[in-house]
């Protein structure tokens, strides 16, 4: 009894400072150093910004950008209130007319206010995710097929190799023309501009995903393939039990790569084609040329960067969730 207490005391007496120092060095590495980096950047930014004069006034420093964040958000709230009021008025009007004349069929008109900064963020996010998911749906089955079959690989490889280095922005005019030629439903489910941006995103996601999936599938340990042969696994079960799990790390590498590029390309495409989204916001502000424009663009730049970062982290988290080999996900 006695010895135990003494030992415990000794144990803690010895161990605690060590634990403390590990905790401390972790805290420094994970919190203090990044914080210092950010502070230094902000300082450098505000000092440099003051020295740059543009035709639209001084280059915005951190505080100007913060102000614009505030302004953008309250603009968004005001717009939402307006929208709400619009629908309320419409409803009241319709109710009144129906009361006067029961045969009247009320018309419901959509609110057509200008998209706010938040709306543009949401649009861009929806666009990038839809384009990305469409690419996943095409590229992963295709990549698996190409990885499994040498014949198919030889057939598809030249096409992939040629299209891979093409900037998806070069596709944009073609996509736009094709979409307006083919997408002629009288009551479109989604806007043409959305389709254009989405397909551009898909085109840029496709190649890295096909290549990485195919490489992953082709590189499966031949012993594992032999196991499957000895078991006489049917083709679908072979893909499900052996091929997919074995190539999950490579598939995710391709997906992360694609999503990163897709986000960059989407912003550029929105700027170029004036399609709704963050890119259009940036372009509009640039065209607008008010004294706040640069600060607003800078705010958009920060948001774009932050969202790109979150998308990457999200993919990483997803990879950790589905992958058996977590050492690959870092």
């Amino acid at each position, binding site marked *: 009894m006695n010895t135990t207490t003494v030992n415990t005391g000794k144990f803690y007496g010895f161990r605690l400072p060590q634990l403390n120092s590990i905790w401390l060095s972790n805290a420094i590495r994970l919190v203090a150093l990044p914080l210092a980096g950010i502070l230094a950047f902000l300082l450098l930014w505000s000092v440099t910004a003051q020295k740059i004069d543009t035709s639209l006034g001084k280059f915005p420093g951190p505080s100007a950008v913060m102000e614009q964040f505030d302004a953008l958000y309250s603009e968004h709230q005001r717009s939402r209130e307006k929208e709400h009021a619009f629908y309320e008025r419409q409803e009241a009007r319709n109710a009144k007319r129906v009361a006067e004349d029961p045969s009247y069929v009320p018309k419901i008109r959509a609110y057509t206010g200008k998209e706010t900064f938040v709306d543009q963020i949401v649009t861009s996010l929806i666009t990038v995710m839809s384009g990305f998911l469409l690419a996943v749906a095409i590229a992963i089955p295709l990549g698996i097929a190409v990885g499994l079959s040498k014949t198919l690989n030889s057939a598809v490889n030249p096409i992939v190799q040629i299209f891979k280095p093409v900037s998806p922005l070069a596709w944009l005019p073609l996509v736009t023309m094709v979409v307006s030629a083919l997408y002629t439903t009288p009551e479109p489910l989604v806007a043409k501009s959305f389709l254009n941006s989405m397909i551009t995103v898909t085109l840029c996601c496709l190649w890295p995903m096909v290549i990485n999936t195919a490489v992953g599938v082709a590189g499966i*340990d031949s*012993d*594992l393939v*032999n*196991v499957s*042969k*000895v*078991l*006489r*696994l049917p083709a679908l079960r072979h893909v499900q*039990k*052996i091929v997919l*799990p*074995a190539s999950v790390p490579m598939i995710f590498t391709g997906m992360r790569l694609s999503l990163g590029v897709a986000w960059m390309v989407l912003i550029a495409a929105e700027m170029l084609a004036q399609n709704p989204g963050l890119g259009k916001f940036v372009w509009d502000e640039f065209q607008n040329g008010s004294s706040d424009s640069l600060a607003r663009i800078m705010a958009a730049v920060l948001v774009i960067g932050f969202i790109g970062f979150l998308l990457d982290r999200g993919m990483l988290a997803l990879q950790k969730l589905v992958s*058996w*080999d977590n050492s690959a996900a870092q």
Partner: protein
Amino acid sequence: MSVLLDISHIDMEFPTPKGPFTALRDVDLKIQQGEFVSLIGHSGCGKSTVLNVVAGLYQATRGGVILNGKEVTEPGPERAVVFQNHSLLPWLTAYENVELAVKQVFGKSKSKAEMRQWIEHNLELVHMSHAMHKRPGEISGGMKQRVGIARALAMQPKVLLMDEPFGALDALTRAHMQDSLMEIQAELNNTVIMITHDVDEAVLLSDRIVMMTNGPAATIGEILDVNLERPRHRLELADDVQYNQYRAKVLKFLHERHSKTDVPTTRSMAQKTETTASAMKKDSTSVPESVDNAA
């Protein structure tokens, strides 16, 4: 007892950029139900090729393999393979690895509960019950090899094919595994073809030892019948005269008569083999990896 497996005059040629490479020439072997046969020979002579032809993973260029009167044309679970490096699926637990095989073989004939019992029974057979819900990454090399054996046994194969199953294990683990294998074989009376580099292992486990000549165009050089009584115990056999004679015969074949022509082609070759042989006698009984045949 009747012939279960007939490896009938097989030749194996591999297409290479420099033209076809003849790995095997006229390998002919008949194996009976319940027999334990070892294949021994120098590295690269073509042992794995023989095994892969029997497994159906390779197609022989000439000749063929007949199992129970039917020609083998593709791989199948009645010829289960224990691969050299275990080849477990790393994303499945030991239990799930065996389950994949059991579902495939008995999915229609056994109920869920029966399959579960059968999987657990086989894992118990190789003494892996305690770690059956661990993944290959979490267990030792010997344990992985055990699971690989359990997976193969669980398929209830007509022939169990093992490619250097214990090659990657340390001596102690290997001895344990050999004992387990002898126990299992005594219980189930499996027909086994096992490739090995280890002379002691071959003599201890086998009913017959098939010694292969060096490649290219390797073939069966000599077959040694091992008539030691079972059950065999390694410690008792260590001083057994007959055991040591068998051992010596295999060693002699490997070190002196490894050449296809039975006679070393040049004098320098003979000297080289002699020195290697005497060096081998001193410390180890494994086959050296690098005795080339300048054919």
